Each structure stands twice: as C-alpha cells, then as structure tokens.
C-alpha cells in the first residue's frame, strides 16, 4: 500500500496544532484542540484506506477501482461521536461560564493544597528577610482561577 503524502502531512499538522491548543488553560481552546485532534485521527484513517478510487457502489464500479469503504464507515462513526462529545464540552463550558464568569479551568484540589503548603513555608522567611516581600506578595492573593500561583523557593 502506498500512503498519500499530502493526507499524512495534513494529519500531522492537525495533530500538532491540536496538541498546542490542548495545552492552553482556556476551555474553548482545549475544545478546539480536541476537535483538531479528532480530525487528525479521521484523516489518519483515510491515509490507512490507501489510494483513493471510485465510489464503492457494488455492481456499478469494478471492484479493482473501488476505494476501501471500511475506513470511510469508521470515519463517519468517529465524526458522529466527536460531534456529540463537542456538544457536551460546549455545554460544560457554558455552565462553567454561568458559574464563575470565566473560561479558565480552575485549579484542582491537590494544586490548591500545594499552594497552601508553599505559602505556609514561605511565610516565616518573609519576617526574616524583608527583601523578599515583593516576590511573595503575589501569594497573598487567594489562589483562584488563572493566578497559577507559582511560589519561588
């Protein structure tokens, strides 16, 4: 089987851009990342189908000229699934917006605990070395969405 180079490159670009978007902290960007990744996988299935041929109508097209119909059926299934999942993420993004007026994924419980511990560790140093006050000031903000409270050691 000779794979189609154009399709392979397209799949690669879709995967790369999808991964990049997925790394963002905004829900909408992550959603777009998922959509691009899914389409990358769909194009990959088309690459797997081998060279393109005539439409696979039994009896009208000679079998040797047909393109492989099975990956097309799988791509259709995958597209339908992605559609449903996208709708669900959109609903969740909307609900998240209703609840917190932000599109940013909030810190998880374990992150919050780490930040609390780190703040507790930093606090005594502040009294001994007043010069780090400026650096640590950021940690007094409540660790919420988007603050990303990274505590410098």
């Amino acid at each position, binding site marked *: *089987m000779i*794979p189609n180079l154009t399709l392979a490159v397209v799949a690669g670009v879709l995967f790369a851009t999808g991964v990049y978007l*997925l790394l963002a902290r905004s*829900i909408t960007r*992550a959603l777009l990342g*998922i959509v691009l*990744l*899914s389409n*990358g*996988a*769909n194009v*990959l*299935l088309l*690459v*797997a189908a081998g060279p393109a041929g005539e439409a696979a109508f039994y009896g009208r097209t000679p079998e040797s000229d047909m393109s492989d119909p*099975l*990956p097309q059926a*799988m791509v259709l*299934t*995958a597209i339908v*699934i992605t559609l*449903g*999942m996208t709708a*669900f*993420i959109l609903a*969740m*993004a909307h*609900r*998240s917006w209703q*609840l*917190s007026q932000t599109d940013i*994924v*909030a810190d*998880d*419980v*374990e992150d919050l605990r780490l930040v609390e511990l780190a703040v507790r560790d930093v606090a005594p140093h502040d009294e001994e070395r007043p010069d780090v006050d400026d650096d640590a000031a950021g940690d007094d903000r409540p660790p919420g969405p988007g603050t990303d409270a990274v505590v410098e050691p």
Partner: protein
Amino acid sequence: MTGIDWDILVPLPVVLALAGAGVAVVVTGRIRLQRAVSVVTLSLVLVVALALLVGADREGPLSVTVGGWPARMGVVLIVDRLAALMLVVSATVTLGVLLYSIGQGAASTDEERADEQAPLPIFHPTMLVLSAGVSNTFITGDLFNLYVGFEILLASSFVLLTLGGSAPRIRAGISYVVVSLLASVILLSAIAMLYAATGTVNMAQMAERLDALPEGTRLVLQLMLLVAFAVKAAVFPMFGWLPDSYPTAPAPVTAVFAGLLTKVGVYSIMRTQTLLFPGDQLTELLMWAALATMLVGILGAVAQDDIKRMLSFTLVSHIGFMLFGVAVGTAAGISAAIFYVAHHITVQTTLFLVIGLIERYGGTTSLTRLGGLAKLAPVLAVLFFLPAMNLAGIPPFSGFLGKAGLLQAGAEQATWLAYLLIAGSVLTSLLTLYAIARVWSRAFWQPPIEPATEGLERVPRGMTLPAAALVAVGLAITVVAGPLFAVTDRAAADMLERAPYIDAVFPGGVP
C-alpha cells in the same frame, strides 16, 4: 461449536441494557415505573451473564456475527471465559449500585433531590447506557467496535460525573472529559495505524497478520494501544485525572466508576497484550509501570485527609497489582490478575458505597471531622471493616488469595525485577493496611471531635441493604475462590494459546 442456544445470548447484555435505557427515558415522568424497568433490565443482564459464563466454560468461546455479515466484513461479538466473568462481575455491582441509588433517592429530601438529580430523572437511563458500553467492550471481537464501546461508556460517564452541574463537579468534569477524549483520540489513531498495517480491525484476523509484521512496526502499534488503554486504566504516569475527578461525584456514581471504568482499561490491556502481541518484549516496561503505579498510588492515599480521596488513590495503587499479573505474562500471572480484577471490582465498589453511607450519617467524609462511628453506628463499622480488610489483603479474604497468586506467579519467573515487584507488592499491601487503619482509628474509634451529634441522620435501610449485599458478595468470592481460580486458570490458558479464540471467530481457518 454445537452451542447454537448459547450463541444467541452473546449480544443480549448490550441489547437488553440499551433497550432498557430507551424504555426508561420514555417513562421518565413515572419514577416508580422507571426504577422497576432499570432493576428488571439489569437483573436480566445478570442472568444472561451467568448463563454466558456457564456456556463459555463448557463450550469454549461463543461467537456471533452481527447482522449475518461474514466475520471479515462485519462486527464479530465473542464471549470467552474472561469476557463472561467480567460480564458477571460488572452486572452484579451495577445492579447493587442501582438498588443503593434507589434507596438513596427514596429517602432523600426534595432539596437534595434537586441537587442530586438534574431536571430530568436521567440517572437510570444513563446508568443503563453505561452498563451497555461496558458490556460492549467486553463482548466485542472487533477493535473499532471496542472504541465505540469505550465512547458509549465515556459519554454516559460524562453525564453521570457532572449530574446537577455544581461548580466542583463541572471543574472536575472538564479535566476528566478532556483527558478521556485525548485517550480516545490516541486509541482511534492506533486503530487507524493497525488498519494500515494489517488491513483489518477484526482482532482474530489481526492477531494472525501482526505475526508477519517487522518487529519495529509491531512495537509502535503495541505501545500506542498500551498508552491509550493505560490512560483509561489510570496506570502511572497517566493516573492524575482519577483522584481529581472521582471524589466529587455522588456516591453511587463514584462507586460504579471506581469498580468498572478503570477495569475496562485493564481488560483491554489484557486482551490486546495476550491476543495481538504475544511474547515478552514489553515485560520490563509493564513491570516498572506496575511498580510505580502501586507505590505512587498508595503514598498518595496515605497523605489524604478525606476518605473518598484516600480510596481513589488506593484504587490507582491496586491497578498496579493487575498490571503486575499481565506483565508476568505466564498462565499463573494472568489467571491471578483476572481473579484480582474480579475481587477488586466488588470490593472497591462496596467501599465507595459504604463511604456514601458514612457521608450520609456523619455529614462529611473528612477524617478531621468524623469520629466515634464505631459506637454510634456499629452496623456501618462492620460494613466498612470487612471490605477494608479484604482490600488490604488480610487472610483469609479474597484480596489475600489474589495477591498470593500474583506473588507466586512473580516468584516463578525468578528475575530480580520480579522479586523487586514482589517486595513492592508487599509494601503496598502494608501501606494499604496503614491507610485503612488510619481511617478506622480516626473515624471509628477516637471519640467524636464535635459533640454535635444531633446533626447525625439515620441511614435508610434501602441504602444499607444493597451495600450489605455487596459486602456479602465480596465475602462469597473468598468462599468460592477455589472454583473461581479454576475458571480463571482455564481462561488464562485459552488466552495464551490464542487458538480457541481465533477458531471461534473463523471456524474454517483465518482468511
């Protein structure tokens, strides 16, 4: 293959559950009828699963071609001993959880009901769809259909996890959904590559054709499938999503997730590693992953102050035991791993249900606020103590028997890595016992921290009885451990031999 009668049963676990879900959606207005529909459906699924186990054990793997299409073109459904056993265990715990949630729903006040149940009473239909998705991954003989099964169970798990749409659940839901979908994309890409390499998605045919491929290509395909399933099974280092998302869901949902969803990933790893990629090229990698999963998981559990979060981490840690058995890869190892999966599904689900009872009674699951439960609620104490000791692997419970089987299989392999894993397993068991003992001494034994006992609520019998029944099932696994181990031995032998599975799909030889 005389078993025409048996073969008819193969698609039923999925068909019944989906049909039941449809009926349950239609009767949403009438809660009693809806409950009856879901209980009857799941009971039927359980009966069918038991029949399939008997059939598969007597006749060998049972297979059906969907729609009568020949196996190369259409989807093949196949139930061997492993799949049948998984069906029985999953149907049992799903039924138990459903009864528990009915007990909870009947007793909860209107206010809670508004919180627990979304505008439509969608809990029951979604639970049935989840059951159908889980069964579909167990019975399918087609890799793309396996992907579809995963998507069915994922979609319903998304709905269940975000029931009510409160802020913590939406936060947990977003990371869970994104991680799950990423794993699905990896799985789909792996399937595309496997199709490109072999020209089929039928697992039996693929098994034959993969043998002819160059080793490098095989390894890439094997690793991609392994990564996709390892995310679902919460194997180190891809487990971070689990303890973050599970504890926020309602108790019955967490219980069914903890019991089933990760085990579906473990089942898929077992199936693909034995059927598609026999041999030991990944043994070392799997062993290191198993060791890291065990230790990191249990250390996370020890550090927790909340029982639900603690249990989520022990769940991750014990996935390592099953992976250990798969990594050893001998008949003894796989047999012990299957036994451990059956044991762990039951016990972990039971524990989460009991924690739900504790939450209901004490109003919290935080260890810093609970206390004195042994005196205040002796029944709860017993219900917690038995499965907890079972989880920690105290003799004579089934957890001990499963672990003993795994250690024995590891010792038979007699490499230094296997001995390291044995040491790691023993350490993990001890630390599990420590984590459990911490819960026991703080929540049950020490005097109540806050004297405010008037906030304590009576736990309805409708919730206690299903939990007690599942505790009894967990103990029953200990009693029937002999025959059960005999079945898993035969299942593991068949899986390693591969021929019975392939012959069941292609009785006249692989095309």
